[in-house]
C-alpha cells in the first residue's frame, strides 16, 4: 500500500457517496464539453469565407424548388460576385440505411464559392470537368472505403430517372477535407448529369448560393433579390449563411454568454456539493485521522492525502465527462452534420480540452482545500476525548 492506496481507501469508505459526487462532476464536465463545442463553433462560424455567402430559397418552404431560370437575374443583381445552385438529392449508397448527405450542384461555381471545402486543385478540376464526377467529404469516403477513380452507384429516395431506375452511377473525382466552417461529410454530384436524367421537376433547383462582394452589401443584395421575385410564381427568401447556420440565434454573443452562464452555474454548484461533502467526509473520519497522526503521519502528509482524494474524484468525473462528451459530439456531427453546416463544425477541439484539464485541477484543488485544512488541524488529544 502507498499513499495512493490511502487515497483510494479514503474514497472507498463510502463508495455510494463517492459515486454520486463523481456523477455530479461528470455532469458538469459533460455540459461543459458539449456547450464548449457549440461556443467554439459559434465563434468560428462567422469567419471571412462564409460572411459573404447568402442562401436563396423558396419563400413558401425551403423544400419547394425554384426555377433555374432565376440564375441570370440573380447574377445581374448589384453586389453579387458569384452564384451557384444546389438541389437536395436525398441519397443513399446501395441500401437506404447508408444515408448520404447528397446534393446536386453546379460544380465550377459551387466549388468557387465554397473554397473552405478545401479541395486539392487538381481534383477540383477533375470534378468540374467530368459529367459523372462525385465530390466526397473525407469522413464519408473513409466510412465506405471509397478512393479516387472508383465507380459507385448512388441512389435517391426522392428522384427517379426517366429510365425508371433511381440510381446514378458516378466516379469519385475529388475528396475534400473540410475546415472549421465546413464538415467533411456531404457528397456532391454534377447538377447537369443529375437533371438531364431525372423524370420530373427538370430545370428547378433547391437553393441558389450567392457570394457577395463584401459583407457590407449583404442587406442590399438580400433586398434586391427578394424584391426581384416578389409577385412572381415562386417568391424567394434570401438569408445570410450565418443566419442560416444559427437561425435560432439573433445575437451569437448572447448565446455565448448563456453557455458561459450555464457552464459556470454547473461548476459552482458542483464545487459547493463536492466541497461540502468532502468537509463532511473528513469530519466523519476525525478519529481515523487522529489515529494516523498518533502513528506518526505528519499533518502535511494527511492534508496531501485529502487533496489527493478530491483531485482523483475530479479527474475521474471530469475524464468521464470529456469522454462521453466526445462520443456525443462525434455521433452528433455525423448524424446532424449535413442538415446544417453548423452541426458539421461541432468538434472536440483543444480549445475545449485544455481548459477542461485546468478545471479538473482547480476543482480538485479547491474542493480539497477546506477539508484538507480541517484534517490537518485535527487535534489528536481532543479527538480522542470525543471518541
Amino acid at each position: 500500500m502507498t499513499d495512493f492506496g490511502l487515497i483510494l481507501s479514503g474514497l472507498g469508505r463510502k463508495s455510494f457517496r463517492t459515486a454520486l459526487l463523481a456523477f455530479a462532476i461528470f455532469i458538469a464536465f459533460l455540459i461543459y464539453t458539449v456547450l464548449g463545442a457549440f461556443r467554439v463553433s459559434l465563434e468560428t462560424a462567422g469567419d471571412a469565407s462564409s460572411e459573404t455567402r447568402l442562401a436563396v430559397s423558396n419563400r413558401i418552404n425551403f423544400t419547394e424548388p425554384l426555377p433555374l431560370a432565376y440564375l441570370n437575374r440573380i447574377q445581374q443583381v448589384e453586389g453579387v460576385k458569384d452564384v451557384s445552385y444546389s438541389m437536395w438529392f436525398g441519397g443513399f449508397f446501395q441500401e437506404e440505411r447508408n444515408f448520404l448527405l447528397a446534393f446536386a450542384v453546379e460544380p465550377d461555381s459551387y466549388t468557387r464559392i465554397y473554397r473552405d471545402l478545401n479541395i486539392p486543385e487538381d481534383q477540383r478540376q477533375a470534378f468540374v470537368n467530368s459529367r459523372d464526377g462525385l465530390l466526397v467529404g473525407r469522413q464519408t469516403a473513409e466510412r465506405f472505403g471509397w478512393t479516387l477513380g472508383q465507380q459507385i452507384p448512388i441512389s435517391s429516395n426522392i428522384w427517379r430517372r426517366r429510365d425508371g431506375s433511381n440510381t446514378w452511377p458516378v466516379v469519385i473525382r475529388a475528396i475534400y477535407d473540410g475546415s472549421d466552417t465546413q464538415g467533411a461529410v456531404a457528397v456532391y454530384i454534377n447538377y447537369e448529369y443529375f437533371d438531364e436524367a431525372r423524370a420530373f421537376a427538370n430545370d428547378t433547383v433547391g437553393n441558389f448560393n450567392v457570394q457577395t462582394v463584401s459583407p457590407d452589401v449583404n442587406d442590399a443584395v438580400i433586398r434586391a433579390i427578394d424584391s426581384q421575385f416578389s409577385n412572381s410564381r415562386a417568391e424567394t427568401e434570401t438569408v445570410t449563411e450565418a443566419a442560416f447556420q444559427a437561425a435560432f440565434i439573433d445575437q451569437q454573443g448572447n448565446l455565448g454568454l448563456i453557455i458561459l452562464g450555464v457552464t459556470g452555474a454547473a461548476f459552482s454548484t458542483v464545487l459547493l456539493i463536492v466541497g461540502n461533502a468532502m468537509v463532511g467526509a473528513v469530519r466523519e473520519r476525525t478519529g481515523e485521522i487522529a489515529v494516523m497522526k498518533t502513528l506518526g503521519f505528519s499533518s502535511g502528509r494527511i492534508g496531501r492525502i485529502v487533496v489527493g482524494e478530491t483531485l482523483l474524484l475530479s479527474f475521474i468525473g471530469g475524464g468521464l465527462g470529456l469522454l462521453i462528451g466526445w462520443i456525443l459530439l462525434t455521433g452528433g456531427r455525423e448524424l446532424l452534420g449535413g442538415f446544417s453546416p453548423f452541426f458539421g463544425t461541432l468538434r472536440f477541439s483543444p480549445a475545449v480540452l485544455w481548459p477542461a484539464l485546468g478545471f479538473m485541477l482547480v476543482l480538485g484543488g479547491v474542493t480539497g482545500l477546506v477539508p484538507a485544512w480541517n484534517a490537518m488541524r485535527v487535534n489528536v488529544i481532543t479527538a480522542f476525548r470525543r471518541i
Partner: protein
Amino acid sequence: MSEQALIELTNVAKTYRRGGETLSIFSDLNLTIPAGDFVAVMGPSGSGKTTLLNMLGGLDRPSSGTIMFDGAPIERLSENQLSAWRAANVGFIFQFYNLMPTMSAARNVELPLLLTSLSGRDRRERVRTALEIVGLADRMGHRPKELSGGQQQRVAIARAIVADPKLILADEPTGDLDRVTAQEILEMLQLLNRELGKTIVMVTHDPAAAKYAKRELHLDKGTFEERLT
C-alpha cells in the same frame, strides 16, 4: 542502577487553561522508567493518566519540566519532528482499538510502515511476522468488523509493534474486553516485554490487570505512589 533509563521525567508540570481558570494536573512530576520496564499506571478518573501517556508519546507537551527519551529531550521537538519521532519509537494501543474500518487487518498493521523507507516486499514480510506474533496470521484479509474485540485488539498490538519501537503505550487496553480475553491480551503484553524487550507503560483501572506489570504506579493529586508487584 545498572539499567539505562529510557524515559526520565524531571519536574514536569501540566496545566490546562479553560476560560479564565487554570487547572493544574501535575505540578512537579518526577519519574524514571528504565528500558525493559513494564509499568502499570493506576489512579482515579481525572487524575491525569491519559495526559501522562500523551506526554510520554509526544502527543502533548508539558507546561514545564523536561522529558528525556533515550537521553534526548523530546519536549523541544517541532510538530513534524515529533511525528517522525513517534513513528520510529512509540507504539500505541487504545481502549477501543482504533483500527481503520475500511482496511484489512494486514493493511492496518502496515500503516506505520508507510512512514519508513521499507520496500513493499519487506513491509509485507514484517506485517506477516507481526500478525504471527499475535496469532492472527490467518486473518490478514479480514476487516475490523469481521473480527471480535479481542482479535481487533491483537491487530492493534501487531500495529503497535510492527515498526519495532522501543516503547509501547497502552491506555486501558483491556477496558473493553471480557476477563478471559483481557487475560490473553495482558499475557501478550507480558510476552512482548519479556521476549522482545519492549518497554511498556499501561494505564488501567483494573488491579488484576496491573498485576501483569513489573510495577504499579498510583497517580493521585499530581504525584506518584509506587508499589512493586
